[in-house]
Protein backbone atom coordinates (compact mmCIF):
# COMPACT_ATOMS: atom_id res chain seq x y z
CA UNK A 1 0.00 0.00 0.00
CA UNK A 2 1.19 3.50 -0.83
CA UNK A 3 2.09 5.39 2.31
CA UNK A 4 0.56 8.71 1.30
CA UNK A 5 -3.01 9.54 0.36
CA UNK A 6 -3.49 12.81 -1.50
CA UNK A 7 -6.79 14.62 -1.08
CA UNK A 8 -7.46 17.75 -3.11
CA UNK A 9 -10.28 20.23 -2.66
CA UNK A 10 -12.21 21.47 -5.70
CA UNK A 11 -14.75 23.69 -3.94
CA UNK A 12 -15.17 25.12 -0.45
CA UNK A 13 -18.78 26.28 -0.68
CA UNK A 14 -21.75 26.42 -3.01
CA UNK A 15 -20.84 29.42 -5.13
CA UNK A 16 -17.10 28.79 -5.23
CA UNK A 17 -14.96 29.25 -8.36
CA UNK A 18 -15.93 26.70 -10.99
CA UNK A 19 -12.45 26.50 -12.54
CA UNK A 20 -10.68 25.63 -9.30
CA UNK A 21 -10.86 21.84 -9.49
CA UNK A 22 -9.07 21.20 -12.77
CA UNK A 23 -5.57 22.34 -11.68
CA UNK A 24 -6.03 20.32 -8.49
CA UNK A 25 -6.87 17.17 -10.47
CA UNK A 26 -3.92 17.79 -12.80
CA UNK A 27 -1.61 18.04 -9.78
CA UNK A 28 -3.06 14.86 -8.24
CA UNK A 29 -2.57 12.98 -11.51
CA UNK A 30 0.97 14.31 -11.91
CA UNK A 31 1.87 13.27 -8.36
CA UNK A 32 0.65 9.73 -9.01
CA UNK A 33 -0.49 7.42 -6.24
CA UNK A 34 -3.89 7.16 -4.57
CA UNK A 35 -5.85 10.39 -4.77
CA UNK A 36 -9.26 11.79 -3.95
CA UNK A 37 -10.98 15.02 -4.96
CA UNK A 38 -13.54 16.54 -2.61
CA UNK A 39 -16.11 19.25 -3.17
CA UNK A 40 -17.62 20.81 -0.06
CA UNK A 41 -20.75 22.66 -1.13
CA UNK A 42 -23.21 22.38 1.73
CA UNK A 43 -23.38 25.24 4.24
CA UNK A 44 -25.77 25.29 7.19
CA UNK A 45 -28.76 26.69 5.28
CA UNK A 46 -27.89 25.38 1.81
CA UNK A 47 -29.55 22.05 2.46
CA UNK A 48 -32.84 23.63 3.46
CA UNK A 49 -32.82 25.74 0.31
CA UNK A 50 -32.22 22.54 -1.65
CA UNK A 51 -35.12 20.85 0.14
CA UNK A 52 -37.41 23.74 -0.83
CA UNK A 53 -36.24 23.41 -4.45
CA UNK A 54 -36.96 19.69 -4.39
CA UNK A 55 -40.53 20.33 -3.22
CA UNK A 56 -41.08 22.37 -6.38
CA UNK A 57 -39.30 19.95 -8.71
CA UNK A 58 -38.60 16.38 -7.55
CA UNK A 59 -35.60 16.08 -9.88
CA UNK A 60 -33.74 18.95 -8.19
CA UNK A 61 -32.55 19.50 -4.64
CA UNK A 62 -28.86 18.76 -5.19
CA UNK A 63 -26.08 21.30 -5.78
CA UNK A 64 -27.39 23.52 -8.62
CA UNK A 65 -23.90 23.89 -10.12
CA UNK A 66 -23.06 20.18 -9.95
CA UNK A 67 -22.74 19.93 -13.72
CA UNK A 68 -20.43 22.98 -13.96
CA UNK A 69 -18.31 21.80 -11.02
CA UNK A 70 -17.83 18.19 -12.02
CA UNK A 71 -18.03 18.11 -15.83
CA UNK A 72 -14.58 19.68 -16.43
CA UNK A 73 -12.81 17.03 -14.33
CA UNK A 74 -15.02 13.94 -14.49
CA UNK A 75 -13.16 12.37 -17.43
CA UNK A 76 -9.71 12.98 -15.93
CA UNK A 77 -10.78 11.60 -12.56
CA UNK A 78 -12.26 8.43 -14.03
CA UNK A 79 -9.32 7.88 -16.37
CA UNK A 80 -6.71 8.32 -13.63
CA UNK A 81 -8.38 6.71 -10.65
CA UNK A 82 -8.94 9.99 -8.78
CA UNK A 83 -12.00 9.28 -6.72
CA UNK A 84 -14.56 11.99 -5.98
CA UNK A 85 -16.24 12.50 -2.61
CA UNK A 86 -18.69 15.31 -2.04
CA UNK A 87 -21.77 16.50 -0.21
CA UNK A 88 -23.13 17.98 -3.46
CA UNK A 89 -26.04 15.56 -3.21
CA UNK A 90 -27.60 18.01 -0.71
CA UNK A 91 -31.32 17.17 -0.35
CA UNK A 92 -31.44 14.74 -3.28
CA UNK A 93 -28.25 12.67 -3.66
CA UNK A 94 -30.07 10.01 -5.72
CA UNK A 95 -30.95 12.57 -8.40
CA UNK A 96 -27.38 13.90 -8.30
CA UNK A 97 -26.04 10.38 -8.88
CA UNK A 98 -28.31 9.97 -11.90
CA UNK A 99 -27.12 13.30 -13.31
CA UNK A 100 -23.50 12.13 -12.93
CA UNK A 101 -24.32 9.03 -14.97
CA UNK A 102 -25.87 11.24 -17.67
CA UNK A 103 -22.79 13.50 -17.63
CA UNK A 104 -20.48 10.50 -18.07
CA UNK A 105 -22.61 9.12 -20.91
CA UNK A 106 -22.76 12.51 -22.63
CA UNK A 107 -18.96 12.77 -22.51
CA UNK A 108 -18.52 9.22 -23.78
CA UNK A 109 -16.78 8.11 -20.58
CA UNK A 110 -16.88 4.68 -19.02
CA UNK A 111 -19.81 4.11 -16.73
CA UNK A 112 -18.73 5.29 -13.25
CA UNK A 113 -19.47 3.39 -10.07
CA UNK A 114 -21.53 5.95 -8.17
CA UNK A 115 -22.41 5.40 -4.52
CA UNK A 116 -24.87 7.48 -2.54
CA UNK A 117 -24.65 7.90 1.21
CA UNK A 118 -28.08 7.81 2.84
CA UNK A 119 -29.46 8.17 6.33
CA UNK A 120 -28.96 11.87 7.05
CA UNK A 121 -32.46 12.96 6.02
CA UNK A 122 -34.37 12.15 9.18
CA UNK A 123 -37.74 13.26 7.78
CA UNK A 124 -37.34 10.79 4.89
CA UNK A 125 -36.18 8.13 7.35
CA UNK A 126 -39.24 8.69 9.51
CA UNK A 127 -37.23 9.27 12.67
CA UNK A 128 -39.02 11.26 15.35
CA UNK A 129 -37.11 14.12 16.88
CA UNK A 130 -36.90 16.02 20.14
CA UNK A 131 -38.04 19.08 18.22
CA UNK A 132 -38.49 22.47 19.86
CA UNK A 133 -41.97 23.82 19.23
CA UNK A 134 -40.60 26.95 17.54
CA UNK A 135 -38.94 24.74 14.93
CA UNK A 136 -42.00 22.59 14.21
CA UNK A 137 -43.89 25.43 12.55
CA UNK A 138 -42.91 25.37 8.88
CA UNK A 139 -40.29 22.65 9.31
CA UNK A 140 -38.38 22.33 6.03
CA UNK A 141 -35.60 19.87 6.76
CA UNK A 142 -34.07 17.77 9.53
CA UNK A 143 -30.68 16.31 8.71
CA UNK A 144 -28.17 14.54 10.90
CA UNK A 145 -24.48 15.21 10.43
CA UNK A 146 -23.18 11.81 9.38
CA UNK A 147 -19.57 10.79 9.83
CA UNK A 148 -16.88 9.22 7.68
CA UNK A 149 -17.77 5.56 8.07
CA UNK A 150 -20.34 5.23 5.27
CA UNK A 151 -18.03 7.14 2.91
CA UNK A 152 -15.18 4.76 3.72
CA UNK A 153 -17.44 1.75 3.18
CA UNK A 154 -18.51 3.04 -0.23
CA UNK A 155 -14.89 3.58 -1.29
CA UNK A 156 -13.87 0.13 -0.06
CA UNK A 157 -16.73 -1.29 -2.10
CA UNK A 158 -15.20 0.27 -5.19
CA UNK A 159 -17.00 3.57 -5.67
CA UNK A 160 -15.48 6.03 -8.13
CA UNK A 161 -17.75 8.75 -6.86
CA UNK A 162 -19.41 9.06 -3.46
CA UNK A 163 -22.39 11.41 -3.35
CA UNK A 164 -23.46 12.54 0.11
CA UNK A 165 -26.08 14.81 1.56
CA UNK A 166 -25.37 16.09 5.04
CA UNK A 167 -22.09 14.78 6.42
CA UNK A 168 -19.66 16.62 8.66
CA UNK A 169 -17.36 18.55 6.33
CA UNK A 170 -14.08 17.02 7.61
CA UNK A 171 -15.57 13.55 7.18
CA UNK A 172 -15.24 14.06 3.42
CA UNK A 173 -11.48 13.70 4.01
CA UNK A 174 -11.49 11.28 6.91
CA UNK A 175 -13.65 8.81 4.94
CA UNK A 176 -11.05 8.34 2.18
CA UNK A 177 -8.27 8.17 4.80
CA UNK A 178 -10.12 5.42 6.70
CA UNK A 179 -10.59 3.44 3.49
CA UNK A 180 -6.97 3.94 2.45
CA UNK A 181 -5.13 3.32 5.72
CA UNK A 182 -7.54 0.86 7.30
CA UNK A 183 -7.43 2.63 10.65
CA UNK A 184 -9.58 1.34 13.47
CA UNK A 185 -12.61 3.50 14.23
CA UNK A 186 -11.22 4.02 17.72
CA UNK A 187 -7.74 5.07 16.63
CA UNK A 188 -8.61 8.52 17.93
CA UNK A 189 -5.30 10.31 17.32
CA UNK A 190 -5.10 9.28 13.66
CA UNK A 191 -8.80 9.97 13.12
CA UNK A 192 -8.33 13.41 14.66
CA UNK A 193 -5.29 14.14 12.49
CA UNK A 194 -7.13 13.38 9.25
CA UNK A 195 -10.18 15.23 10.56
CA UNK A 196 -8.11 18.39 10.98
CA UNK A 197 -6.66 17.84 7.50
CA UNK A 198 -10.28 17.87 6.38
CA UNK A 199 -10.91 21.01 8.41
CA UNK A 200 -8.01 22.71 6.60
CA UNK A 201 -9.35 21.65 3.17
CA UNK A 202 -13.07 22.11 3.62
CA UNK A 203 -13.13 25.83 2.82
CA UNK A 204 -11.07 25.54 -0.35
CA UNK A 205 -8.88 28.59 -0.91
CA UNK A 206 -9.24 29.78 2.68
CA UNK A 207 -6.08 27.87 3.59
CA UNK A 208 -4.12 28.97 0.52
CA UNK A 209 -4.40 32.74 0.66
CA UNK A 210 -8.12 33.37 0.27
CA UNK A 211 -9.87 35.23 3.12
CA UNK A 212 -6.32 36.16 4.14
CA UNK A 213 -4.82 38.91 1.99
CA UNK A 214 -4.39 42.35 3.52
CA UNK A 215 -2.20 44.55 1.33
CA UNK A 216 1.04 45.68 2.92
CA UNK A 217 0.54 43.31 5.84
CA UNK A 218 -0.43 39.95 4.35
CA UNK A 219 0.36 39.98 0.65
CA UNK A 220 -0.83 37.08 -1.49
CA UNK A 221 0.38 36.62 -5.08
CA UNK A 222 -1.92 36.09 -8.06
CA UNK A 223 -5.23 35.84 -6.24
CA UNK A 224 -7.05 35.74 -9.57
CA UNK A 225 -5.67 32.22 -10.00
CA UNK A 226 -5.46 31.03 -6.43
CA UNK A 227 -4.49 27.37 -6.08
CA UNK A 228 -6.86 25.16 -4.10
CA UNK A 229 -5.32 22.97 -1.44
CA UNK A 230 -4.07 19.41 -1.57
CA UNK A 231 -3.40 17.47 1.64
CA UNK A 232 -0.85 14.68 1.68
CA UNK A 233 -2.14 12.49 4.46
CA UNK A 234 0.36 10.22 6.17
CA UNK A 235 -0.17 6.92 7.93
CA UNK A 236 0.29 8.55 11.35
CA UNK A 237 -2.60 10.96 10.66
CA UNK A 238 -0.37 13.98 10.11
CA UNK A 239 -0.63 15.91 6.86
CA UNK A 240 1.22 18.28 4.59
CA UNK A 241 -0.83 21.00 2.92
CA UNK A 242 0.23 22.18 -0.54
CA UNK A 243 -1.29 23.42 -3.79
CA UNK A 244 -0.79 22.95 -7.54
CA UNK A 245 2.58 24.12 -8.88
CA UNK A 246 2.37 27.46 -10.66
CA UNK A 247 -0.95 28.42 -9.08
CA UNK A 248 -1.56 31.68 -7.22
CA UNK A 249 -2.10 32.06 -3.53
CA UNK A 250 0.02 31.41 -0.49
CA UNK A 251 0.32 28.52 1.93
CA UNK A 252 2.54 29.27 4.90
CA UNK A 253 2.56 28.81 8.65
CA UNK A 254 0.28 31.80 9.07
CA UNK A 255 -2.35 30.97 6.45
CA UNK A 256 -2.59 27.45 7.86
CA UNK A 257 -2.92 28.64 11.47
CA UNK A 258 -5.74 30.99 10.51
CA UNK A 259 -7.69 28.20 8.85
CA UNK A 260 -6.89 25.73 11.61
CA UNK A 261 -8.64 28.04 14.08
CA UNK A 262 -11.47 29.00 11.72
CA UNK A 263 -14.91 28.28 13.21
CA UNK A 264 -13.22 26.49 16.07
CA UNK A 265 -14.22 27.12 19.66
CA UNK A 266 -12.55 25.05 22.37
CA UNK A 267 -9.27 23.98 20.72
CA UNK A 268 -9.20 20.95 22.99
CA UNK A 269 -12.56 19.70 21.75
CA UNK A 270 -13.42 20.11 18.07
CA UNK A 271 -16.39 17.78 17.89
CA UNK A 272 -17.28 15.80 14.77
CA UNK A 273 -19.37 12.62 14.42
CA UNK A 274 -16.10 10.67 14.11
CA UNK A 275 -13.89 11.97 16.89
CA UNK A 276 -13.25 14.84 19.29
CA UNK A 277 -10.12 16.48 17.93
CA UNK A 278 -7.68 18.32 20.18
CA UNK A 279 -5.18 20.75 18.68
CA UNK A 280 -3.72 22.05 21.93
CA UNK A 281 -0.49 20.14 21.25
CA UNK A 282 -0.55 20.48 17.46
CA UNK A 283 2.41 21.89 15.55
CA UNK A 284 2.35 23.82 12.28
CA UNK A 285 5.69 23.67 10.45
CA UNK A 286 6.79 25.21 7.16
CA UNK A 287 8.59 22.58 5.08
CA UNK A 288 9.20 24.78 2.04
CA UNK A 289 7.43 27.20 -0.27
CA UNK A 290 3.68 26.53 -0.10
CA UNK A 291 4.21 23.35 1.94
CA UNK A 292 3.14 23.21 5.57
CA UNK A 293 2.91 20.24 7.92
CA UNK A 294 0.24 19.80 10.58
CA UNK A 295 1.23 17.27 13.22
CA UNK A 296 0.58 16.45 16.85
CA UNK A 297 -3.22 16.53 16.67
CA UNK A 298 -4.72 14.29 19.33
CA UNK A 299 -8.12 12.67 19.47
CA UNK A 300 -10.65 11.63 22.07
CA UNK A 301 -13.63 9.30 21.84
CA UNK A 302 -16.41 10.37 19.49
CA UNK A 303 -19.67 11.68 20.99
CA UNK A 304 -22.57 9.32 21.64
CA UNK A 305 -24.95 11.64 19.79
CA UNK A 306 -25.12 13.15 16.34
CA UNK A 307 -25.94 16.79 15.69
CA UNK A 308 -29.15 17.35 13.77
CA UNK A 309 -30.03 20.60 12.05
CA UNK A 310 -33.66 21.55 11.76
CA UNK A 311 -34.55 24.27 9.27
CA UNK A 312 -37.88 26.02 9.36
CA UNK A 313 -39.52 28.87 7.52
CA UNK A 314 -38.84 32.05 9.38
CA UNK A 315 -40.66 35.03 7.88
CA UNK A 316 -39.29 37.60 5.49
CA UNK A 317 -36.23 39.84 5.26
CA UNK A 318 -36.69 43.23 3.62
CA UNK A 319 -33.76 45.46 2.70
CA UNK A 320 -33.47 48.83 0.98
CA UNK A 321 -30.61 51.14 0.08
CA UNK A 322 -30.20 54.69 -1.24
CA UNK A 323 -27.08 56.83 -1.76
CA UNK A 324 -26.21 60.41 -0.90
CA UNK A 325 -23.05 62.20 -2.03
CA UNK A 326 -21.26 65.53 -1.76
CA UNK A 327 -21.79 68.27 0.80
CA UNK A 328 -23.86 67.22 3.85
CA UNK A 329 -24.33 63.71 2.42
CA UNK A 330 -24.20 62.18 5.89
CA UNK A 331 -26.76 64.64 7.26
CA UNK A 332 -29.12 63.86 4.37
CA UNK A 333 -28.70 60.11 4.86
CA UNK A 334 -29.43 60.50 8.57
CA UNK A 335 -32.55 62.54 7.74
CA UNK A 336 -33.70 59.78 5.37
CA UNK A 337 -33.20 57.24 8.16
CA UNK A 338 -35.32 59.36 10.52
CA UNK A 339 -38.10 59.53 7.92
CA UNK A 340 -38.06 55.73 7.52
CA UNK A 341 -38.07 55.17 11.29
CA UNK A 342 -41.25 57.24 11.51
CA UNK A 343 -42.94 55.70 8.47
CA UNK A 344 -42.14 52.13 9.54
CA UNK A 345 -42.77 52.50 13.27
CA UNK A 346 -44.42 49.45 14.81
CA UNK A 347 -42.98 46.90 12.42
CA UNK A 348 -40.25 45.76 14.81
CA UNK A 349 -36.52 46.40 14.79
CA UNK A 350 -35.45 48.59 11.89
CA UNK A 351 -31.73 48.27 11.31
CA UNK A 352 -30.01 51.37 9.95
CA UNK A 353 -26.57 51.35 8.33
CA UNK A 354 -24.71 54.41 7.13
CA UNK A 355 -22.35 52.72 4.71
CA UNK A 356 -19.22 54.85 4.61
CA UNK A 357 -19.70 55.91 8.23
CA UNK A 358 -20.64 52.81 10.25
CA UNK A 359 -22.22 49.62 9.03
CA UNK A 360 -21.14 45.99 9.35
CA UNK A 361 -19.33 46.34 12.68
CA UNK A 362 -22.52 47.65 14.28
CA UNK A 363 -25.31 45.78 16.09
CA UNK A 364 -28.90 45.41 14.82
CA UNK A 365 -30.24 47.37 17.80
CA UNK A 366 -28.52 50.59 16.74
CA UNK A 367 -26.38 51.02 19.87
CA UNK A 368 -23.13 51.17 17.93
CA UNK A 369 -24.42 53.64 15.36
CA UNK A 370 -25.94 55.77 18.11
CA UNK A 371 -22.50 56.01 19.72
CA UNK A 372 -21.00 57.52 16.56
CA UNK A 373 -20.92 61.32 16.53
CA UNK A 374 -22.66 62.77 13.45
CA UNK A 375 -20.02 63.94 11.00
CA UNK A 376 -19.54 65.22 7.49
CA UNK A 377 -18.97 62.09 5.39
CA UNK A 378 -19.44 62.98 1.72
CA UNK A 379 -20.36 59.59 0.22
CA UNK A 380 -22.90 57.65 2.25
CA UNK A 381 -25.20 54.80 1.33
CA UNK A 382 -28.14 54.40 3.67
CA UNK A 383 -29.24 50.84 4.17
CA UNK A 384 -32.23 49.70 6.21
CA UNK A 385 -33.45 46.19 6.97
CA UNK A 386 -36.15 44.46 8.96
CA UNK A 387 -37.56 40.98 9.54
CA UNK A 388 -41.28 40.35 9.59
CA UNK A 389 -43.42 37.24 9.78
CA UNK A 390 -45.74 38.57 7.05
CA UNK A 391 -44.54 39.23 3.51
CA UNK A 392 -46.87 42.21 3.06
CA UNK A 393 -45.56 43.93 6.18
CA UNK A 394 -41.93 43.36 5.23
CA UNK A 395 -42.68 44.74 1.79
CA UNK A 396 -43.66 48.09 3.30
CA UNK A 397 -39.94 48.72 3.85
CA UNK A 398 -39.05 48.28 0.21
CA UNK A 399 -41.89 50.62 -0.80
CA UNK A 400 -40.90 53.31 1.69
CA UNK A 401 -37.24 53.27 0.59
CA UNK A 402 -38.30 53.55 -3.05
CA UNK A 403 -40.58 56.49 -2.18
CA UNK A 404 -37.54 58.39 -0.86
CA UNK A 405 -36.78 59.24 -4.49
CA UNK A 406 -39.54 61.83 -4.43
CA UNK A 407 -40.33 62.28 -0.74
CA UNK A 408 -36.86 62.10 0.79
CA UNK A 409 -33.85 64.39 1.16
CA UNK A 410 -32.19 66.06 -1.82
CA UNK A 411 -30.06 64.11 -4.24
CA UNK A 412 -31.01 60.61 -3.12
CA UNK A 413 -30.23 58.08 -5.83
CA UNK A 414 -29.57 54.47 -6.65
CA UNK A 415 -32.38 52.76 -4.74
CA UNK A 416 -32.10 49.01 -4.57
CA UNK A 417 -34.51 46.83 -2.62
CA UNK A 418 -34.65 43.15 -1.78
CA UNK A 419 -37.38 40.99 -0.26
CA UNK A 420 -36.80 37.32 0.45
CA UNK A 421 -37.95 34.51 2.75
CA UNK A 422 -35.73 33.49 5.64
CA UNK A 423 -34.91 30.11 7.11
CA UNK A 424 -34.49 29.51 10.81
CA UNK A 425 -32.14 26.93 12.22
CA UNK A 426 -32.19 24.79 15.35
CA UNK A 427 -29.80 22.08 16.47
CA UNK A 428 -30.77 19.01 18.43
CA UNK A 429 -28.84 15.89 19.36
CA UNK A 430 -29.98 12.34 18.62
CA UNK A 431 -28.45 9.08 19.76
CA UNK A 432 -26.24 7.79 16.97
CA UNK A 433 -27.85 4.35 17.14
CA UNK A 434 -31.09 5.85 15.85
CA UNK A 435 -29.46 7.02 12.63
CA UNK A 436 -28.72 4.42 9.95
CA UNK A 437 -25.89 5.77 7.79
CA UNK A 438 -25.32 3.55 4.76
CA UNK A 439 -24.34 3.60 1.12
CA UNK A 440 -26.05 2.23 -1.97
CA UNK A 441 -24.78 2.02 -5.54
CA UNK A 442 -26.90 3.82 -8.10
CA UNK A 443 -27.21 2.61 -11.66
CA UNK A 444 -27.61 4.85 -14.68
Amino acid at each position, binding site marked *: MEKILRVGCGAGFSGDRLDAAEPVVDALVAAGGPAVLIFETLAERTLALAQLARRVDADTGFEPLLDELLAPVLGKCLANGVRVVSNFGAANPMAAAKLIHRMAAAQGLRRPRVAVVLGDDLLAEGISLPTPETAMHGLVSANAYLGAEAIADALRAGADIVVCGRVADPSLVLGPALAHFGWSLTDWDRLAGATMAGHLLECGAQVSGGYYADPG*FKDVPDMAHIGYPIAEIHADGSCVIGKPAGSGGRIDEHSVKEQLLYELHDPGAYVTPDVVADITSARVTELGPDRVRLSGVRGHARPATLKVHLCHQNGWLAEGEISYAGARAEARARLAADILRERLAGLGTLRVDLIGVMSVLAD*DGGRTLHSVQPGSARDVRLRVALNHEQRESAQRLTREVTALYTCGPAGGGGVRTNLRPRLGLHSVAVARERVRARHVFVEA
Partner: protein
Amino acid sequence: MLTVPLYRIAHGRTGDKGDRSNISVIAWRPEFWPALVEQVNEAVVTELFATRRPITVQRYLLPHLHAVNVVLDGILDGGVTSALNLDSHGKSLCFLLLDLPVRVPEEWAPLLIGPDDTPAASANDRIPFHDAGRNG
Protein backbone atom coordinates in the same frame (compact mmCIF):
# COMPACT_ATOMS: atom_id res chain seq x y z
CA MET B 1 6.99 51.38 25.36
CA LEU B 2 5.27 51.96 22.02
CA THR B 3 1.53 51.81 21.47
CA VAL B 4 0.62 50.19 18.15
CA PRO B 5 -2.48 48.54 16.69
CA LEU B 6 -2.71 44.83 17.38
CA TYR B 7 -2.44 44.10 13.65
CA ARG B 8 1.23 45.07 13.73
CA ILE B 9 2.07 42.10 15.95
CA ALA B 10 -0.69 39.63 15.10
CA HIS B 11 -3.18 38.54 12.48
CA GLY B 12 -6.44 36.65 12.67
CA ARG B 13 -9.77 35.75 11.14
CA THR B 14 -13.38 35.44 12.19
CA GLY B 15 -15.50 32.31 12.00
CA ASP B 16 -19.14 31.85 12.92
CA LYS B 17 -21.46 29.10 14.07
CA GLY B 18 -25.00 30.18 14.80
CA ASP B 19 -24.96 33.21 17.09
CA ARG B 20 -21.37 32.59 18.15
CA SER B 21 -18.29 34.15 16.69
CA ASN B 22 -14.67 33.11 17.14
CA ILE B 23 -11.76 35.37 16.37
CA SER B 24 -8.27 33.94 16.16
CA VAL B 25 -5.36 36.19 17.03
CA ILE B 26 -2.03 34.76 15.91
CA ALA B 27 1.34 36.27 16.76
CA TRP B 28 3.50 37.13 13.76
CA ARG B 29 6.58 36.08 15.76
CA PRO B 30 6.94 33.80 18.79
CA GLU B 31 8.39 36.66 20.86
CA PHE B 32 5.16 38.65 20.35
CA TRP B 33 3.04 35.91 21.94
CA PRO B 34 3.36 37.07 25.58
CA ALA B 35 1.93 40.46 24.60
CA LEU B 36 -1.18 38.69 23.29
CA VAL B 37 -1.54 36.71 26.50
CA GLU B 38 -1.20 39.85 28.59
CA GLN B 39 -3.24 42.31 26.55
CA VAL B 40 -5.80 40.42 24.42
CA ASN B 41 -7.76 39.26 27.43
CA GLU B 42 -11.43 38.69 28.11
CA ALA B 43 -11.95 42.03 29.82
CA VAL B 44 -10.49 44.02 26.93
CA VAL B 45 -12.44 42.06 24.33
CA THR B 46 -15.68 42.41 26.28
CA GLU B 47 -15.20 46.18 26.40
CA LEU B 48 -14.32 46.37 22.70
CA PHE B 49 -17.48 44.53 21.67
CA ALA B 50 -19.72 46.06 24.33
CA THR B 51 -22.31 47.51 21.92
CA ARG B 52 -22.83 44.04 20.44
CA ARG B 53 -23.61 42.71 23.92
CA PRO B 54 -21.85 39.37 24.06
CA ILE B 55 -23.42 36.93 26.51
CA THR B 56 -20.02 35.43 27.25
CA VAL B 57 -16.47 36.05 26.11
CA GLN B 58 -14.07 33.17 26.50
CA ARG B 59 -10.41 33.08 25.58
CA TYR B 60 -8.39 29.97 24.80
CA LEU B 61 -4.59 30.02 24.68
CA LEU B 62 -2.62 28.00 22.14
CA PRO B 63 1.01 28.32 23.24
CA HIS B 64 2.37 25.92 20.59
CA LEU B 65 0.73 27.93 17.84
CA HIS B 66 1.45 31.31 19.51
CA ALA B 67 -2.23 32.04 19.12
CA VAL B 68 -5.26 33.11 21.10
CA ASN B 69 -8.79 32.04 20.22
CA VAL B 70 -11.52 34.37 21.41
CA VAL B 71 -15.07 33.00 21.44
CA LEU B 72 -17.91 35.52 21.73
CA ASP B 73 -21.36 34.11 22.35
CA GLY B 74 -24.48 35.97 21.30
CA ILE B 75 -22.87 38.80 19.34
CA LEU B 76 -24.30 38.07 15.89
CA ASP B 77 -27.91 39.20 16.52
CA GLY B 78 -28.99 35.60 15.94
CA GLY B 79 -26.51 34.86 13.15
CA VAL B 80 -27.18 34.16 9.49
CA THR B 81 -30.76 33.05 10.04
CA SER B 82 -32.04 36.23 11.64
CA ALA B 83 -29.43 39.02 11.78
CA LEU B 84 -30.23 42.20 9.86
CA ASN B 85 -26.55 43.00 9.40
CA LEU B 86 -25.22 43.01 5.84
CA ASP B 87 -22.41 40.89 7.23
CA SER B 88 -24.64 38.42 9.05
CA HIS B 89 -21.69 36.04 9.49
CA GLY B 90 -19.66 38.73 11.27
CA LYS B 91 -16.72 38.07 8.98
CA SER B 92 -15.51 41.64 9.37
CA LEU B 93 -15.33 41.50 13.17
CA CYS B 94 -11.68 40.43 13.39
CA PHE B 95 -10.72 43.87 12.10
CA LEU B 96 -12.37 45.48 15.08
CA LEU B 97 -10.23 43.39 17.40
CA LEU B 98 -7.08 43.88 15.31
CA ASP B 99 -7.44 47.66 15.81
CA LEU B 100 -6.90 47.21 19.53
CA PRO B 101 -4.02 49.39 20.72
CA VAL B 102 -1.31 47.31 22.39
CA ARG B 103 1.82 48.37 24.25
CA VAL B 104 5.06 46.85 23.02
CA PRO B 105 8.75 47.37 23.90
CA GLU B 106 10.50 49.98 21.78
CA GLU B 107 13.08 47.44 20.65
CA TRP B 108 10.30 45.64 18.76
CA ALA B 109 9.95 48.59 16.38
CA PRO B 110 12.04 47.05 13.56
CA LEU B 111 10.17 43.75 13.94
CA LEU B 112 6.65 45.13 13.61
CA ILE B 113 4.66 44.01 10.57
CA GLY B 114 3.60 46.43 7.84
CA PRO B 115 3.87 50.21 7.68
CA ASP B 116 2.85 52.50 10.52
CA ASP B 117 -0.53 53.45 9.10
CA THR B 118 -2.27 54.37 12.34
CA PRO B 119 -4.66 57.20 11.45
CA ALA B 120 -3.60 60.32 13.39
CA ALA B 121 -6.97 62.01 13.15
CA SER B 122 -9.51 60.43 10.90
CA ALA B 123 -13.20 59.77 10.66
CA ASN B 124 -12.64 56.78 12.90
CA ASP B 125 -11.91 59.03 15.83
CA ARG B 126 -15.61 59.78 16.20
CA ILE B 127 -16.26 56.10 16.71
CA PRO B 128 -15.87 55.61 20.46
CA PHE B 129 -14.95 51.94 20.48
CA HIS B 130 -11.84 52.65 18.44
CA ASP B 131 -10.64 54.45 21.54
CA ALA B 132 -11.83 51.82 23.97
CA GLY B 133 -8.48 50.21 24.55
CA ARG B 134 -6.34 53.17 23.67
CA ASN B 135 -6.40 54.59 27.16
CA GLY B 136 -6.43 51.24 28.89
